[in-house]
C-alpha cells in the first residue's frame, strides 16, 4: 500500500510536469487544449478562458439586477421631473455613475484575483525534501510553518496542503474557490469572486462609486418627493402620483396607511445606503493602513497580540503612500495563464489521469519518501 497522506504527492491533483524523462504512450492527437480547461481550482471560465468566475457565482445576478432595476426606475420616472424642474445634468451624472458602477462590478467579478498556480510536482518534492530533514518517518509530520523576517518583523508562512507550497505572505487559501489567492481580502458573494491583489482596486472603486450612486439616487428621490409636495399637494398625493416608485402603495392603498409604507421604504433605502457607506468607510480605512479584511478580522497586526513585535510590516507609514500603493500601484499580471496552450503530452496525461496509477517519475523523485511511506503503512497496519 503506497497511499500516504502527507508525503506522497498525488499527481492527479496537479498537472503533470512534462520535463520528466517520461515516455507517454502515443495516443490519438487531440485538439490543442488550453490551460483553463485543466485548471484545478473551483472556477468557471467563459469566452475561452478570458473571463474567470468562482464556481458559486453567489448573488452576482442579484447585485446586477438590483443596480440595473433601481437605475432604470430612476431614469424612467424621476429624471423627467427633475430635468424639468432642476437641471439636465441629473441624468448625465446618474448615467456616468451607473456606467462606472457596472464596469467596476464586472471587472471585479471577471478578473483573476491573484490566484497562485499550484506547485509543480518537482517543486513540491523539493519543498518536502527541505522540510523532512529530521528524518522522523514513523510519526505524523508536524504542522508545516516557516518563520521569516519581513521588515524586521517575524511572520509565519503556512504550508498549503492543497497547493503544495508555502504560502507567500498575505496569501490565503479560499475554500470556496479552492485556490491560494495573493493579498487575499475576502470572498465576496455579491461580486461572485474572491477579492485579492489584482482586483482589489476594482472592488474598491465599485463600492465607492456605488455609494455615490445610491446617495445620488436617494437624494434625487427625496428632492422629487419634496418638490412635488411643495407644489401644493400633500405628501400622500405626491406618492400616489409616482406609481413606479411605489407600486405596492398603489395596490394596497385601500388597506394600508400609505404614508407609513413610504416611510418603511425610505428607511430601507436609508439603511442600505448606510451599509454601503459603512463598507466603503471600512475599506478606506484598510487601504489607508495597507491591511486586508482577512488580516483585520484575524487581528494579525493588532497590538493585543503582544509586545513591540506587532505592527503591520507592509505599511509605508504614510496614508497617502498606502493609498497610492494599493489603488494606483502597478497592475500585476495574472499568474495562471488561462489561455496558454497545454503541451500535447501534458494534455494527454491530464485527460487520462484517472487511468494512470502512479507514473514512475514519482518513484524517481520520491524514492526515499516511498520507503518512509511503506514504513508508515507497516506501522499503521501492524
Amino acid at each position, binding site marked *: 500500500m503506497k497511499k500516504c497522506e502527507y508525503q506522497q504527492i498525488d499527481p492527479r491533483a496537479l498537472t503533470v510536469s512534462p520535463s520528466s*524523462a517520461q515516455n507517454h504512450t502515443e495516443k490519438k492527437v487531440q485538439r490543442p487544449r488550453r490551460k483553463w480547461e485543466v485548471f484545478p481550482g473551483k472556477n468557471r471560465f467563459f469566452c475561452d478562458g478570458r473571463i474567470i468566475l468562482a464556481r458559486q457565482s453567489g448573488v452576482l445576478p442579484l447585485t446586477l439586477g438590483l443596480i440595473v432595476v433601481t437605475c432604470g426606475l430612476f431614469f424612467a420616472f424621476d429624471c423627467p421631473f427633475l430635468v424639468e424642474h432642476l437641471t439636465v445634468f441629473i441624468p448625465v451624472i446618474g448615467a456616468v455613475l451607473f456606467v462606472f458602477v457596472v464596469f467596476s462590478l464586472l471587472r471585479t467579478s471577471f478578473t483573476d484575483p491573484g490566484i497562485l*498556480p499550484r506547485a509543480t510536482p518537482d*517543486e513540491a518534492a523539493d519543498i518536502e525534501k527541505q522540510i523532512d530533514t529530521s528524518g522522523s518517518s514513523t510519526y505524523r509530520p508536524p504542522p508545516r510553518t516557516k518563520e521569516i523576517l519581513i521588515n524586521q518583523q517575524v511572520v509565519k508562512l503556512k504550508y498549503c496542503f492543497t497547493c503544495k507550497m508555502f504560502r507567500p505572505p498575505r496569501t490565503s487559501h479560499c475554500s470556496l474557490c479552492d485556490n491560494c489567492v495573493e493579498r487575499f481580502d475576502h470572498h465576496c458573494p455579491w461580486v461572485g469572486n474572491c477579492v485579492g491583489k489584482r482586483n482589489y482596486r476594482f472592488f474598491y472603486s465599485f463600492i465607492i462609486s456605488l455609494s455615490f450612486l445610491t446617495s445620488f439616487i436617494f437624494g434625487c428621490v427625496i428632492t422629487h418627493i419634496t418638490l412635488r409636495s411643495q407644489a401644493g399637494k400633500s405628501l400622500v398625493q405626491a406618492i400616489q402620483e409616482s406609481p413606479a416608485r411605489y407600486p405596492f402603495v398603489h395596490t394596497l392603498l385601500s388597506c394600508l396607511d400609505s404614508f407609513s409604507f413610504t416611510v418603511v421604504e425610505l428607511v430601507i433605502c436609508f439603511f442600505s445606503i448606510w451599509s454601503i457607506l459603512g463598507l466603503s468607510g471600512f475599506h478606506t480605512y484598510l487601504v489607508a493602513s495597507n491591511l486586508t479584511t482577512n488580516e483585520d478580522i484575524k487581528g494579525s497586526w493588532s497590538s493585543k497580540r503582544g509586545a513591540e513585535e506587532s505592527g503591520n510590516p507592509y505599511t509605508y507609514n504614510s496614508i497617502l503612500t498606502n493609498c497610492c500603493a494599493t*489603488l494606483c500601484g*502597478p497592475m500585476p499580471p495574472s499568474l495562471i495563464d488561462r489561455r496558454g496552450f497545454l503541451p500535447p503530452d501534458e494534455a494527454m496525461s491530464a485527460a487520462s489521469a484517472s487511468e494512470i496509477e502512479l507514473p514512475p517519475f514519482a518513484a524517481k523523485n520520491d524514492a526515499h519518501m516511498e520507503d518512509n511511506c511503506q514504513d508508515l503503512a507497516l506501522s499503521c497496519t501492524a
Partner: protein
Amino acid sequence: MAETHSLQDMRQQAAIAAKVFIQRDYTNGTVCQFQTKFPSELETRIDKQQFEETVRTLNNLYAEAEKLGSQSYIEGCLACLTAYTIFLCMETHYEKVLKKIAKYIQEQNDKIYAPRGLLLTDPIERGLRVIEVTIFEERSLTR
C-alpha cells in the same frame, strides 16, 4: 501548473539530472525578489559570481516592474478615470518589464547556462514563486 518553455523542448533529448529551485526572498515585503544564496548543487557547473549576478539582475528588473513611481501612478489614475477599460487595450508597465525579463533569461540561457548544461525557467511560468534551474546530465559538454 507546469508549463514547458520552448527552450526546454530543445533540451528534451538530454536527461535531467536534477532541478534546483531558488525560492523567494520576503525580507523586504511582498515585492518579487529571489534569494541570491548560491545553491550547492550548482557549484560544479557555474561560477558563483555569475549566478548571483543573474539573480541580482532579475531582482532589479522585478523591482523596476513593481516600482511605485510617477509612471505607475499616472497609469493607475488614468485607468481609474476610464473605468479600467484602458487595461483592455494598453499593455501595462509590468507586462512590458516581464517581456524584458523573458528576453534577458533567454539571452542568459543561450550565452551562459546552456553551454554548461543548465536551463533557467522564467519565474512567471512558475507563478513567480521560484526560479527553476534544470541541471542536465553531463554528456559531451566542453567546459
